[in-house]
């Protein structure tokens, strides 16, 4: 669709957006098509002026019209490019969120959810959702939430954790908070977070033992000793 075709309505807009999409897909960066437009203007200018030398005023108005449509085209190209890039970024962050919140079954009726990294509100929500989904899916009555990989604990993170724990309880399951390091324990006390209703264990292993115990199971050594 040409720059000079005369109708700049819906079909033109759709065409330009489509071209922008193709540019993005083939990896043609904005600098190349902006450069191309610049070269176009440089080559077209003398030709337009020569063609309208009998009416330079008109030649000028035509050239300005060309400048406007090229600017509009460029805007569309950049808008499409940015929209596509933003889409990539958001799909990647969705992916990262999913990778970052695994919930795995470690025993029949027991799921483990290792938390790694800082917990912001979006992640906390994602985490709680996945945890609840998996608990229902696996018919788990015990969920081990392991915070070994949580670098630091603040009031907000603790609040998110407590909310997740309450939500699990509403499903009738129990949460065991594992991987509570001494520093985190101190911080929790210092922040005045009340975890007295929550079973906590220093390690995932200790948490699993407690979980199995809750299910009235125990791991025995082959010789019969625990």
């Amino acid at each position: 669709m040409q720059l000079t075709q005369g109708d700049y309505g819906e079909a033109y807009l759709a065409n330009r957006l489509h071209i922008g999409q193709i540019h993005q897909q083939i990896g043609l960066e904005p600098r190349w098509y902006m450069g191309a437009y610049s070269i176009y203007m440089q080559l077209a200018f003398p030709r337009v002026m020569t063609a309208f030398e009998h009416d330079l005023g008109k030649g000028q108005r035509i050239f300005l019209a060309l400048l406007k449509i090229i600017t509009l085209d460029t805007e569309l190209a950049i808008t499409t490019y940015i929209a596509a890039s933003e889409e990539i970024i958001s799909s990647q962050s969705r992916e990262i969120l999913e990778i970052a919140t695994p919930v795995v079954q470690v025993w029949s009726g027991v799921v483990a959810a290792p938390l790694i990294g800082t917990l912001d509100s979006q992640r906390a929500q994602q985490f709680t959702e996945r945890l609840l989904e998996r608990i229902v899916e696996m018919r788990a009555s015990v969920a081990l939430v392991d915070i070994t990989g949580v670098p630091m604990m603040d009031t907000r993170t603790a609040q998110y954790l407590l909310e997740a724990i309450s939500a699990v309880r509403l499903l009738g399951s129990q949460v065991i908070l594992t991987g509570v390091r001494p520093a985190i324990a101190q911080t929790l006390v210092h922040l005045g977070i009340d975890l007295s209703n929550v079973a906590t264990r220093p390690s995932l292993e200790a948490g699993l033992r407690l979980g199995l115990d809750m299910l009235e199971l125990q791991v025995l050594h082959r010789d019969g000793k625990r």
Partner: protein
Amino acid sequence: MDTHIPQVVVTMTEWEQRKKFVGFTDEDAQLLQELGPVADMYVDEVVEGLYRQFLSFGET
């Protein structure tokens, strides 16, 4: 890579606003249409110039 791009990145309303902002009027559309036959004459030269320029830059 299959990237999903939102279908409507720019709505017609926004497109009209953008045209208004740069002062693109019906007269401009008319002028561009008048440029058509002239552009047809220089288009080959421009395309050739573009290719020359692109080819002289190895990265493309």
